């Protein structure tokens, strides 16, 4: 479904702030796979997600989504294939518009936006049914503006908006990181529910090693712009968090990682 071929990206090339964010990435994600990505800050995990979303154009290599070369397509053009949930719950919704209007807009993904009045009563009834799935009692508040909702509710709406049209790829960018634990677990549950129900090809960046292991059927570990581990479902089932840390220990030998780096890693994930 998603394929990277020799993909590289350097930010601020030839300056003092030069960052090699992605180095010669080759990666294939198959249809229906739910991939979790872990890595330290600056490892390139979010950059990889953005490379799929199309926020920037790569320096070398190609990206394909659903067998289409999207290397040079802009973000909004790729939006026909994929949907995103951001870390910031304020990013995914229009705060001054109603829940119904937001959901309606998300349903226009990949369609023409004509000056036609389509958000009628019947449409709202349909939306009400869909919102019920969130089990947040929002179905009666469809005309309330998003700005009046809590962060968790907003993120739930964003999630609903991203899956409402069954996208080919769902991108989740640490989408529970900014929420309180209760809302976070609610959102994770909803995420699993929607992905399973529609068998969505999904890529999720996470800070939680536990989440990375328990969710999805494949885990990718990134470091300094490289994919350093690619763990399959079978392997994941056997692995514990400690095993993962051991892998880092091995890496340390292989790649001469400093103790500091491991400390970083531990600090980040535990």
């Amino acid at each position, binding site marked *: 479904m998603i394929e990277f071929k020799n993909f590289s990206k350097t930010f601020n090339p030839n300056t003092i702030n030069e960052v090699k964010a992605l180095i010669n990435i080759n990666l294939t994600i198959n249809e229906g796979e739910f991939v979790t990505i872990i890595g330290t800050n600056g490892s390139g995990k979010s950059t990889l997600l953005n490379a799929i*979303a199309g926020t920037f154009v790569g320096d070398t290599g190609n990206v394909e989504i659903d067998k289409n070369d999207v290397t040079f397509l*802009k*973000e*909004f*053009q790729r*939006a*026909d294939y994929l*949907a*995103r949930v*951001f870390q910031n719950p*304020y*990013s*995914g*919704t*229009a*705060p*001054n*518009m*109603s829940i119904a*209007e*937001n959901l*309606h*807009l*998300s349903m*226009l*993904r*990949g369609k*023409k*936006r*004509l*000056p*036609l*009045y*389509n*958000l009628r009563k019947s449409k709202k009834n349909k939306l009400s049914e869909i919102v019920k799935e969130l089990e947040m009692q929002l179905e009666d508040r469809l005309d*309330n*503006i998003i700005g009046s909702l809590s962060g968790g509710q907003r993120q739930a709406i964003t999630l609903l*908006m991203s899956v409402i049209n069954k996208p080919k790829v769902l991108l989740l960018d640490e989408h529970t990181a900014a929420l309180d634990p209760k809302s976070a677990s609610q959102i994770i549950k909803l995420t699993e529910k929607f992905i399973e129900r529609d068998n969505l090809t999904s890529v999720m960046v996470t800070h939680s090693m536990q989440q990375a292991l328990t969710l999805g059927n494949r885990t990718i570990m990134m470091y300094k712009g490289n994919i350093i581990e690619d763990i399959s479902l079978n392997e994941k089932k056997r692995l514990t968090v400690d095993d993962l840390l051991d892998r880092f220990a091995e890496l340390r030998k292989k790649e001469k990682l400093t103790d500091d780096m491991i400390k970083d890693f531990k600090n980040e994930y535990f």
Partner: protein
Amino acid sequence: MELWIGALVLGLIYSIMTIGVYISYKILDFADITVDGSFTLGAAVSAVLITLGVDPFTSLIFATLAGGLAGMLTGLIHTKMKVNGLLAGILVMIALYSINLHIMGRSNVPLLQQPNFMSFFLAFNPNLPEEIWLSICMLFVISAFACLTSLFFKTDLGLTLRATGDNSIMSSALGVNVDSIKIFGIALSNALVGLAGGAIAQYQGFADIGMGIGMVVNGLAAVIIGEALIKMPSIYAKISSAAIGSILFRFMIAFALFAGMNPIDLKLLTALFVLITIFISLSAGNKVRRKKFVLQKKRVIIGLVAVTAGAVAFVAVNQLFDMGSNKSPIPDGSRKRIGIVQVTSNGVLDITREALLKELEKIGYNTGNLEIIQKNANNDLANLNSIIDDFNTSKVDVIVTISTPATQAALSRAKNIPIVFATIANPFIIKAGTSDTEHLPNVTGTYGWAPMDKTMEFVTQILGDKFKIGIIWDVGQANAEFNVHNLKEELKKYPNIELFEANISSTTDIQQAAVSLISKGINAFVLPPDNTLYSALDAVLKASNNAKIPVFLNDVERLEDGALGSMGHDYTSSGQEAAHIVDRVLKGEKPANIPFFKYSKLTCGLNLNAAKYLGIKLDKEVVYKANYFVGTKKVQAKKKIGIVQFAMEPNVEICKEGLLNGLAGYGYKDGDNIEIIYKNANADFPMINAIMQDLIARDVDIIVPLSTPVVQSSVQQVGGRDNTSVVFTYIYDPYKIGAAKSSTDHLPNFTGVACFPPMKEMFDLIKEMYPEKKKVGVVWNSSEANSESVIKFIRGFVASKGMELIESTVTNPSEVLDASNALISKGAEIFLNAGDNTLNVAYDSFAKVAADNNIPLFSADAETIYNNTIATLGPDYYRTGFDGGVYLARILDGEKAAKIPIMQTKETLLYLNRDVAKRLNYKFANTLIKRASKIVIDSTLISPEKLSVNILKEISK
């Protein structure tokens, strides 16, 4: 009432623009300054299309499209070139200034007699007052428009637009092409602004390059007011709030005008009004925040009450200040009211207003019988409309509009009130009429454009006719454009003068424009009137002074700032004439029957300090032309000058005026560096000697005797004195009375200017007018020295002209009648008054005999022109005086009178009388009319250049 209805209609039309501003500012979250340009663009497109015959509604469609195109451009620059939104807007706005000028072809397009969208609605008027019916129609139209716009924002595209403004990250993630949507939104916003611009142009009756200035600020103010008062989430409420804000904003301005507020404070009031609304909505909002989604009637009511209370307080304060000044004990019925409006404050307009007010007072108006309401729009064209509406409401008897924009506003808004305009360059461009007599029935006034022909005559007289001139002008000023056009036309007469021009659009450009012209090697600046330029003239003067380049203006008031010369209208005469027209209208005359008055009185000024600094030597003829001087010479001690006249008579006053101007032209002014003592003998001969002795006792340095008896006395009293010089003038013949033997052989302390009547020229004139008549009859007093020398002079040449002089002498006035009849019996074919004093006393008898016998009467004395005299030809007494003044200055400079030869004035003045010619069935030759200084038409003296075509046809061959 008209004021409020007018404000409502204006507010409704402007609400289209406000909704446009709301779209960019609130919905798209994009501070778009394009508005100032696209508003004018819409107006320009609509106005030009209408003048080309396009239907007004169709023109509005094009105005909308044009506005949209401008917005699209801003959007493209912002999104595709990644230029900051504010900057993108500014860029397009600035560019539009030029484009709008190109579209209009000039800075102002009048639409006065053109079809407009209002007439469509007025066609269905069920007999309501026009403005009221229009306001009802507009209320429906704008409501429908607001509903449609709101509905649009509920469609898929509209929702996308709102979402993009609300959260562009989300929009992009949902697959929205954010750039395209932004471009579309800005285009939509400006399309509405363009539509509003077109509609306003049609409503106010003209499009003007400056009408968009400040629109974005007005729009934002309206949006903020509306938003503060109406806080409902529904898009209908939001769009309506913008429209309501617009109406409230206009009401606020109307109210300020109604309260008689100083327009200077209008902008301050705007800011306060916006702040108050925001404050009220905040403080009221805190308590009821929970009910956010319910219509907060309370808050609206509190807001409105507070605003009203504030406004009432404002009026109260204003009234307090006004107390006593405008109150009149006379009941309103017998008291007339006039409203005076000017577009802004500047020298020319203020002079006009002051002269008008003074003249009204002179005519006999005072606060008891006339209430004068004075308004100033402070350069805000929209305010002009409200001011006129205010006059309509308060039912003034006459509206006086000073300046062109004020007149334009009045023409389109005050159809039933007499309008008297003053100091506008050209009433025909703004369709006030087609000629001085054919004009709108309720309109008349005074006008005149800057005399570029006279200006160039003046400039070339100083600088020769081969040089380079630089002009600076604001392409956005209608008058400037017109003046520059006239200048260019005039320059066609001067093939060796090269013109360099620099255009400006604001005062900040002036300095650079001046420097760039100087670097092109110009020799002089000629600066036709231009409001922008003249408001920051110092920038040019500074640069020109550094480069030592002379500057010429058309506003004498500005001469002191350092320009060399000025040739302009005397705007006092414009104001005075307007006052007389106002008087006629107030007394019941219909403006339709009062012709436009084109003022022609010129004020020509010279700055002697500038001339000295620039090293330019001013020719005497140049100085002669001027009647206003800046700068005087430095002297060690003020010298005393005694000016003595025999009696009060018009010609001697003219002579004195010339004398003082001659003095001033060479740097001497009374009270400044000389002291002048004026004396008048009041036709009492013994008095003359007493005056002379008094002056000698006062140690007067120079005595100026005017007229023969006074000169005679001075010869006796001060002839040959060492420390008193005499400069005589206003005398026929100084050689008879012992002052001189010839022009160079004269008393050592005497010199002066003689004005012997131009008798050879007189006989040439007679010959030219009546070639077949040979016998010229004169009556004269043989004991009058002056007459004797004149008659002797005539006898000397008359035969050589193939003519014959028939004389009849008298000793006192009672003999004139018989003497005149005697001339008839001797076969005189022409009567001539050669300037005899006795004859002058009984001139009526002389003229009557001439008239009874159908004999043309000529005279050497201009004052007799009204009295059955077909033509007078006499010395130009102003010139005589001027030359005397120049002699005076030379003596003040230290020259000795003995070395200065006596001068004879050669310049003559010819007056003709049409009334007499008509009686005699005589028609003047065109060349003669052109030579005449004045012509009597229906007992009134008129300059020949001001004669109407009909009269010219009637009186000429």
